[in-house]
């Protein structure tokens, strides 16, 4: 295992210390329980938007705390959902009197831990709503199973809901918007290499020099299938087809498109991927009206990419363009 770390057990707190030192104007970090929160929290009268999840997906979520996005983010151990006390304490720290919106990715652990936190908070009289992101089309959707994983749409939802909260949406309206975002986003990802959880010390899975894994999640979980490495354009077709036909996206749709690095894939390759995504969308009459190309929701140092499309209406686009100022996403200010 080759990592720039000191102690595999201290990766999360030390990275948080580094963040606190790097961005004192934007964020503060609370330890035990761990959470990152806006330096100017609480914002009176504004719904507090909080999220969280296992660490190892940076910049998500901790890099998205700041004006126009999250009020707080709760990082668990690497690839492990955070504990209820983190969300409970974070929510109390940033609550501005207008309730709490939780953005939760659909993993058994995330759902249960956020639920427990919400129960605790409601028990103390706080208003809490949550929005569940379950956008990964690599997973069969079924009433009888866990349902789909939450992946790339989370990033877009945090941006849009963060902007809406900043603009004064009340909790109910925010939750309704969040559900609309969740319903209209679809993602799928693939890996060229595995990743190594620091305290495990060896790769989560093994991929041959000529193999790739299609339909992976964001935790080094095995994917939908494994096959010989293909050209980028063919890989993009394999990811786009299930995405497009799932919603389905149709000619005339306007979308926000994210081409995301799983961590170890360089920007030049992401643009090669984006080139093909754009070509497929053009052919299908789908209009990409906004995009993000970069590393936003990662699996440590995994090489690979994920594609997210969100069918966006005017309201979402206006909120997308609202200024944002966080360590990892910034525009308009």
């Amino acid at each position, binding site marked *: 295992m080759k990592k720039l770390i000191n102690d595999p057990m201290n990766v999360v707190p030390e990275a948080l210390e580094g963040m606190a030192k790097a961005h004192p104007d934007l964020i503060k970090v609370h330890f035990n*329980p761990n959470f990152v929160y806006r330096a100017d929290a609480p914002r009176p009268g504004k719904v507090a938007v909080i999220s969280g999840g*296992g660490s190892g997906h940076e910049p998500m979520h901790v890099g998205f705390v700041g004006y126009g996005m999250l009020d707080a983010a709760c990082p*668990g*151990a*690497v*690839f*492990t*959902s*955070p*504990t*209820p*006390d983190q969300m409970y304490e974070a929510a109390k720290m940033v609550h501005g009197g207008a309730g709490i919106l939780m953005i939760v990715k659909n*993993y*058994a*652990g995330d759902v*249960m*831990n956020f*639920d*427990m936190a919400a129960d605790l908070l409601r028990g103390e009289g706080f208003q809490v709503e949550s929005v569940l992101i379950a956008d*990964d089309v*690599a*997973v*069969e959707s*079924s009433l*009888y*199973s*866990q349902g*789909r*994983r939450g992946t790339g749409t989370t990033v877009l939802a945090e941006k849009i809901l963060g902007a809406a909260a900043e603009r004064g949406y009340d909790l109910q309206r925010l939750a309704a918007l969040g559900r609309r975002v969740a319903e209209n986003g679809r993602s799928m990802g693939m890996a060229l290499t595995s990743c190594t*959880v620091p*305290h*495990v010390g060896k790769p*989560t*899975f093994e991929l041959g020099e000529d193999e790739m894994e299609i339909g992976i*999640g964001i*935790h*080094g*979980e*095995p994917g*939908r299938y494994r096959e010989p490495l293909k050209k980028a354009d063919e890989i993009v077709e394999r990811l786009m087809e299930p995405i497009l036909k799932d919603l389905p996206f149709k000619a005339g749709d306007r979308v926000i498109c994210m081409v995301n690095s799983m961590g170890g894939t360089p920007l030049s390759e992401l643009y090669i991927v984006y080139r093909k995504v754009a070509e497929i969308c053009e052919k299908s009459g789908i209009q990409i009206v906004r995009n993000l190309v970069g590393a936003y929701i990662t699996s440590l140092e995994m090489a690979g990419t994920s594609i997210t499309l969100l069918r966006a209406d005017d309201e979402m686009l206006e909120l997308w363009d609202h200024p944002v100022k966080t360590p990892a996403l910034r525009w308009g200010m």
Partner: protein
Amino acid sequence: MPVMRDDVVAWLERCAAVLEENRDYLTQLDAAIGDADHGANMDRGFKAFMAKLPSVADKDIGTILKTLGMTLVATVGGAGGPLYGTFFLQLGVKTANKLMLTPEDWAEALEAGINGVIARGQARPGDKTMVDALLPALEAFKEAIRNGDSFGKALQRMAEAAEQGMKATIPMVARKGRASYLGERSAGHQDPGATSSYLILKAAADTWANAT
């Protein structure tokens, strides 16, 4: 003799030791169909509890078990944290103020713990989760007691049933938890949560082998 407060403490100490020993094994199982953290998560949780144990070891069984449950909730995270946290919290609720456990106490506590897990996680038998080890274990224990077995003997039946339940998860296709994302590909692998459940119940059977 029944299970005394100090026996409960001994059981939990043994759990901590067994989970530390099996840390890599559990993580390996989780790497195959999950995210390679179950061993580390459980070990972290029980280690945290071991640090707190001295301050509650002279309290009643319920307090000890509730402390464990709270500690797991606050330190484990993932699916394991809320599930095992709930499990031990419920065990603690049923054993509040007790300084010893009869077989009936244990059956009642275990049932409450398992019901808590099911309520929290919504898993059904056959979904390839810890429930597949826990439920048959409870049934086996109750049946053994009904058949007149000693407490220790019944606990052994319980552990055997947990082991069988754990092994029975191998061919299952997961419908809950992270392994469910794999669909058919989850078959052929033993569920890590069912395995940790077996280890925890086996630790009870081993620690309390002479209970009557």
